[in-house]
């Protein structure tokens, strides 16, 4: 029989805390490296990602073309690298913008209540009635494709999540003694909202935002895959997967590599989000 080690409660707690910390820092470093790669991608590409070569079409992966070439003879590896910039920065930007707008609306609604609260929450209800990317498909489909429209389409519903969470948190916090004390000592509403309330609720919102990066990346890629997002010559993972669709039989690498890289990227962002959640709230252990 195995020897059962019984750790004192204190030590056990400390151990799992250290693990949570370690995991968080490790994933933070990986995430930063990933974002860094996406920024310096243009200087790292081995081949011109836009140079077509009629004779070098659909070449399998080789020393020169790590991920092979696509149906226009373009280097898939270089395009995946360049595409990282579009895919990652678009998702990050979208998350940051919806986060700022949603949080601001949520705080203001929760704090002031009244008609302004009613108005925004009813708008949120309506936007949330559209299932998932259906509104995105409608918006991008009707006003036309393009990265900006795709982001707009996804952002239209994206802010509601932050707004709802921020609002409900502000509602419960509004009556706390420290807020009343701050109010009585003559702080302006603006200062109260952004100096006293925001820092207390920002943690949970940042966790939501981090976990949203992967979702948004998938959304943008999904729209691009459908031809409603990033347009063809520009490199983006979703549209690259789509462009390899008709060559699946003879040149599967055209779709395979951008898809795989995208999956790994989303896994990293999701892991980072989970690690951040555990890091900010050590009470939740990592089993859930």
């Amino acid at each position, binding site marked *: 029989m195995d020897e059962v080690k019984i750790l004192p409660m204190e030590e056990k707690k400390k151990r799992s805390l250290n693990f949570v910390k370690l995991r968080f820092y490790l994933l933070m470093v990986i995430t930063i490296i990933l974002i860094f790669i996406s920024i310096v991608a243009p200087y790292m590409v081995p081949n011109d990602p836009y140079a077509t070569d009629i004779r070098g079409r659909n070449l399998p992966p080789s020393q020169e073309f790590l991920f092979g070439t696509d149906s226009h003879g373009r280097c898939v590896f270089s395009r995946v690298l360049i595409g990282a910039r579009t895919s990652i920065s678009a998702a990050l930007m979208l998350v940051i913008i919806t986060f700022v707008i949603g949080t601001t609306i949520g705080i203001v609604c929760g704090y002031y209540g009244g008609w302004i609260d009613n108005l925004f929450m*009813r*708008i949120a*209800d*309506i936007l949330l*009635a*559209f*299932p*998932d*990317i*259906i*509104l995105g*498909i*409608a*918006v991008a*489909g*009707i*006003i*036309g494709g393009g990265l900006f429209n795709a982001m707009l389409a996804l952002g239209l519903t994206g802010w509601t999540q932050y707004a709802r969470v921020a609002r409900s948190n502000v509602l419960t916090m509004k009556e706390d003694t420290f807020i009343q004390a701050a109010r009585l000592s003559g702080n302006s509403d603006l200062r109260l909202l952004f100096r006293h309330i925001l820092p207390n609720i920002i943690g949970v919102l940042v966790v939501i935002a981090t976990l949203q990066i*992967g979702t948004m990346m*998938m959304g943008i*890629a*999904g729209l691009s*895959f*459908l031809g*409603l997002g990033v347009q063809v010559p520009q490199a983006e993972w*979703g549209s690259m*997967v*789509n462009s*390899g*669709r008709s060559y*699946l*039989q003879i040149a*599967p690498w055209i*779709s*395979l590599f951008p*898809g795989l890289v*995208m*999956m790994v990227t*989303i*896994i990293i962002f*999701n*892991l980072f989000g989970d690690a951040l959640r555990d890091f900010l709230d050590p009470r939740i252990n990592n*089993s*859930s």
Partner: protein
Amino acid sequence: MFQYIIKRLLQLIPIMLGVTLLTFGLMYLAPGDPASMKLSAQGVPISQDIIEQTRIEMGLDNPFVLQYLTWLRNFLSGDMGKSYADHLPVAEKLMRALPKTIMLSISSMMVTLLVSIPIGILAAVKHNKASDYLIRCMTFIGVAMPNFFLSLLLIYFFALKLNWLPVLAEGSLKGLILPTVALSIAMSSRYIRQVRAVVLEELNKEYVVGARARGVKERIILYKNVLYNTMVTIITLIGLSIGSLLGGTVIVETIFIWPGLGKLVMDAIGARDYPVIQGFVVWMTFIYVMVNLIVDISYRLLDPRTYSS
């Protein structure tokens, strides 16, 4: 209960009004004028006279509110306009495609439930053992896998390499398998994680400890008590995931050429066939809110504690 249902139905009215207003309004954000869109979709040579005439026919010279109300009145009476492309009534086109989408959604949901409940329970029972880690690892990959990429992988392996299944679904029952799998994997991954978390939580509760102490068999505890208590979570999950399921059908149907609503709307977008797009969006949204309503009602039936809140 009856009162609750009525209340919820009444709440849906302003929401659906907002949805229709937004959907109708979108057309006015579209580049170009609906009249010339309609004409170019029909392949009519465009001249100023014809455009003016079509504008009047379509009521585009009326103020926006009046146009919206006319459109809404027609919509409610079942007339969703005619397709720009082939002049067929939009309602008829949607009706023809709807069963296919419902079929795909239901089969994906069934597969998801059949797969995720036992696996989720297994992972919880084998907490922190090898099989638990393996399952968690798989679910992490499943959640991060974009459905379009997964669909292509499935086509590559099962249709092109192994030749087991047709590449294109085209409405056949055999063709239903791959799109169903494509939709269920991501959904199952999410469900498994939740089921695992809930079962873990339940297993630590006092009633389970009590039952164990009384010598009740582990299997009976698991299947009779714990499973019943996870039902509430599963119903909540269904409500939460039906949105991404409906969204996912658009992508998956387009890839597998499954003749449902998603395929229909993508063709309509390609042809700038706005009435079809509008009809699709309003219908999908309606299905979504109705499913959520049903979910909320069954939630209350299952867990009487939520009555009071």
